[in-house]
């Protein structure tokens, strides 16, 4: 089994965190995993992406040339990475921030949902990433909800424990959207 995921969006959307949660989940599952981010002169609103590879075998290159999954949190990142998806790959897109007119390869499995609006309805726009993650785990079926929730609980800072609940709701909302 190998799953190569590119998660892309803009700084502040929790792109790195999504990748880290998946990486932690893979490690808990005794799978091999690598996580590689954009780094350096990053700013809120600037381009951000990370590459996560999960595999039952050891992973030579952490750099993804052809992805199995692309999670595009905004339009710029879809345009940048849509050609990196292999045929029949999984594309999750945030239709809140991506115009309907953008063409994607017909061979792809595409799931477009308004992640950002769904997060707004839950009262915190910043959990759009967890909506996306919920859709991802529901569609790929490689991790269950409990593992993801346990990781969120563990990494949530002590002074922000109240955020765990809205993250849980967002994850469940994502899973519900594709049910």
């Amino acid at each position: 089994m190998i799953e190569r995921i590119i998660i892309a969006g803009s700084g502040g959307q929790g792109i790195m965190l999504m990748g880290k949660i998946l990486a932690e989940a893979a490690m808990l599952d005794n799978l091999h995993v690598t996580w590689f981010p954009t780094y350096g002169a990053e700013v809120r609103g600037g381009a951000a992406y990370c590459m996560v590879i999960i595999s039952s075998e050891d992973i030579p290159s952490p750099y993804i040339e052809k992805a199995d999954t692309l999670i595009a949190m905004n339009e710029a990142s879809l345009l940048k990475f849509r050609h990196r998806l292999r045929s029949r790959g999984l594309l999750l897109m945030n239709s809140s921030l991506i115009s309907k007119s953008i063409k994607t390869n017909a061979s792809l499995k595409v799931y477009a949902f308004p992640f950002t609006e769904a997060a707004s309805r839950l009262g915190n726009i910043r959990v759009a990433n967890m909506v996306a993650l919920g859709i991802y785990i529901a569609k790929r079926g490689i991790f269950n909800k409990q593992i993801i929730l346990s990781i969120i609980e563990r990494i949530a800072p002590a002074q922000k424990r109240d955020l765990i609940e809205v993250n849980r709701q967002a994850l469940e909302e994502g899973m519900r959207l594709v049910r």
Partner: protein
Amino acid sequence: MGRLAESKTLMSGNEAIGEGAIRAGCDFYAGYPITPQNELTAYMARRMAEQQRIFIQAESELSAINMVLGAAAAGARAMTSSSSPGISLKQEGISYLAGCQLPCVIVNIMRGGPGLGNIAPSQSDYFQATRGGGHGDYRCIVLAPDSVQEAHDLMMLSFELADRYRNPVILLGDGMLGQMMEPLKLAPFNSLKRGKSKQWALTGCLGRQPNVIKSFYMQEGQLEEFNRALQGKYKRIQMQQQRWEELYISDARVILVAYGTMARITRSVVRRLRQRGERVGFLRPISLWPFPQRAFRRIVERRPRANLLVIEMSYGQMVEDVRLAVEGRLRVEFLGRSGGGIPSQEEITRATARCRRR
């Protein structure tokens, strides 16, 4: 960071290097921030304080390396870290450390150059690391990990070798290795007999003859004699510390040679070509100085008709050592990009096919 049943932790290369230093018994760190190694400095700021050891964010790279010199002279396990332009600034201090035969560990998480360059991963400081870098006839031991785990483990080894040979050791990584995260099995803490084992250190001479640490020899013949002794030490290191990893050499027609992150990407290609039944081998130098000449001499004997393809994130630096090691007896081809470009699996596959046809 999570701790697991089988006690693995998800860590970045920079953090894993920092924790390696902590567990190796590093008791002095001085550095100055620079991308892409900032997480290492930040990690040490927190962990050194937790361990009640010394962390100093110096006012400059020059200051940091000379603080390391002072701490090493006093017998501390001392280190600094930086990225390419910062390491250039440290070269004078590194030459003095080598000249004073002081142990220390210097981490270079390489970025693009020359000049201020950019912050993308690069391997273009190979010459600087393996040829000395500063003035004078000296060498640093240079170790090049290709994974978060190996970066951690080689940090333990770096401190050990620095002390054993009283010599600076450079851990050479790149931005990709520094930034990427992988599950890490933490090494056990090193139980050290600090101070006592360093008879030469400047620890206060009450009740004994004063020790002298210097790199200045003005009397006729003195410096030459000192340099001969240094060269003897380097010869010993060359005999004892060549390290490498090799795969599928015994039937290989083309052998791909790469180190660090470039070796990870190359390994992907080797695996795929092997699955197709192609006779491709893989050689990864781990010690860049001493260069693993022994590995290449064995290839010359065992595979006298093989072609070598050296792949680097530079325009050809390690390839010179490969050519010296095979002494013209094997054909050596090169593929490299730099300044932010990373040779892709497709480019490596095409270059391998060209090598096979020759």
